[in-house]
């Protein structure tokens, strides 16, 4: 088949129509800052919408991805809610001071002004790269789900304990997180991105069972409502999960996202491989992305990551063909490509180029 454009290829993958090859997107976000002005710091990148956007634009020029998905980091919301965020020059920012010290504190959260803080940087930056790239690739924003925003603000262990001992206080806080997310979704709706990628991190059987996940995130009041709003605001729903034991039935069959990006942990019993995910029908109506080990981008040689990508293409093609599917798998990293100064940019290129060569849909 003749070579398709990025957008044609992704649209074909989403609708299970014939396509030239598998799509690919190593989740390269913060790492692309190395391409801006000879390399800028993480701190600069995540505070300036123009620099944030420029990284995605330079990444696209250098690597020719099929998507652009604007993950900043997982402490954007917590920071704007008042948690202390440690901001190193070159490391991913992270919360180092939680703001829940007693059950009463859950009720004190307030939705911040999204025109300020890093929420604003994220929205403005997303608009800038969407403006530039949306005619070339499928663009999406990236947002933390309510339970993740709360765990980052309150501390995950404390939150999990309080879900049992003080459930009403936790729900109160989750309502505020959801209201914050509602504002953000509306903000993303105005940026022109084609989709919005949710991080619902805690849908993980290592942490929560089905009932608990349903009660604290999976229900209409929280995630289901937010997914509906996302669609209403004109964006496709995507979900990223780097869980070792993801709640696939809920997150794929129930949430019905267009795209689901996931990781694979070979040492965790029950962690689903690409083949298993396809065999069990999760790719039937959803474009699955995964599952290259992110660490290979830093520690693997070009030869090694090329081989891994080749093997994954082969594995996925075999499974898709057996299932009678077309290109419903995106060759991606299981989680973000480490946004690290030591990350080997040539390894990102190797994944994209190898998929171009070995991801041809020829069955």
């Amino acid at each position, binding site marked *: 088949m003749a070579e398709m454009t990025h957008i044609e290829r992704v649209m074909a993958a989403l609708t299970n129509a014939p396509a030239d090859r598998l799509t690919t997107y190593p989740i390269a976000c913060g790492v692309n800052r190395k391409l801006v002005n000879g390399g800028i710091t993480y701190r600069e990148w995540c505070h300036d919408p123009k620099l944030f956007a420029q990284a995605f634009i330079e990444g696209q020029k250098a690597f020719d991805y099929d998507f652009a998905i604007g993950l900043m980091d997982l402490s954007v919301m917590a920071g704007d809610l008042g948690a202390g965020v440690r901001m190193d020059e070159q490391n*991913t920012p992270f919360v*180092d*001071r939680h703001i829940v010290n007693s059950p009463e504190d859950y009720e004190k959260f307030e939705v911040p002004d999204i025109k300020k803080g890093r929420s604003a940087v994220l929205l403005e930056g997303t608009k800038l790269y969407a403006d530039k790239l949306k005619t070339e690739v499928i663009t999406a924003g990236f947002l933390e789900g309510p339970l993740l925003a709360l765990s980052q603000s309150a501390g995950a262990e*404390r939150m*999990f304990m309080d879900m049992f001992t003080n459930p009403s206080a936790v729900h109160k806080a989750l309502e505020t997180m959801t209201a914050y997310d509602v504002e953000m979704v509306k903000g993303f709706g105005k940026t022109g991105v084609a989709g919005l990628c949710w991080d619902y991190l805690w849908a993980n059987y290592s942490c929560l069972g089905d009932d608990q996940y349903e009660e604290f995130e999976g229900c209409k009041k929280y995630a289901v409502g937010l997914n509906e709003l996302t669609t209403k605001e004109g964006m496709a729903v995507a979900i990223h999960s*780097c869980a070792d034991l993801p709640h696939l039935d809920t997150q794929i069959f129930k949430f019905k996202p267009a795209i689901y990006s996931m990781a694979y942990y070979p040492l965790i019993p029950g962690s689903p491989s690409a083949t298993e995910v396809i065999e069990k029908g999760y790719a039937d109506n959803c474009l699955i992305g995964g599952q290259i080990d992110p*660490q290979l981008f830093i520690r693997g040689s070009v030869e090694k990551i090329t081989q891994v990508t080749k093997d994954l293409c082969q594995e996925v093609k075999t499974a898709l063909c057996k299932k009678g599917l077309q290109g419903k798998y995106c060759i991606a990293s299981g989680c973000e490509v480490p946004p690290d100064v030591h990350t080997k940019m040539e390894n990102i290129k190797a994944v994209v180029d190898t998929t171009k060569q070995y991801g041809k849909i020829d069955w």
Partner: protein
Amino acid sequence: MKVSQIAGFLGSGKTTAVMKIVDELMKRGRRMAIVVNDVGEINVDAKFIESHGLKAKEIAGGCICCQIAGTFSETLAKLHDAYDPEIVIVEPSGVAIPWGLKRAAEYSEAKADMVIEHAPVITLVDATRIDLLVKAVKRLVETQIREADVCFVNKVDTASAADIAKTEQLIKEINPKAEISHMSSESGHGIKYACDLIEKKISPRYDEAVEEELLKKQYKG
């Protein structure tokens, strides 16, 4: 450089144990460093914290696989370059997955001239709160027990015999392969034995274990 994880849920006595373990291993002449998430309320020599302490809220994220792995590995590389410790004791949060942390530790080899070894993964289980833990955060506790090489039933100074027995039973059910021992991180009971394990035993590397697992799959066992 050997990395030793002392895991366990919130309040299980990790920091208390880590301080005593470091003390003992320093007496044995080891060059030590620690990565813990809170030293505030623990009574330790201030000088010691200054030279060896590092805040590590960074490993409280849960999602150790990607963004946070970078920060953690950077911390280890910096510790190596600054102090060249023989053993680094790490106190992960109760939502971190020990395999994930091993992987993140190995990742620091790309940033400093060193080879990482792992001490047995130690998980502390608080026997005084066992009923509450099982009710409230069963899956998190199970994950940490499942991934441990050695589980210490902790706070045996105050826990009842019945709770100690119940805790042991739970550990056996979840991870029959794990060695089970007792500790009171407060009184110091069990600390010397934990130090022996850390000094002498080795737990498999993540990368080697993965290669082995993948080969097994490829050749169907």
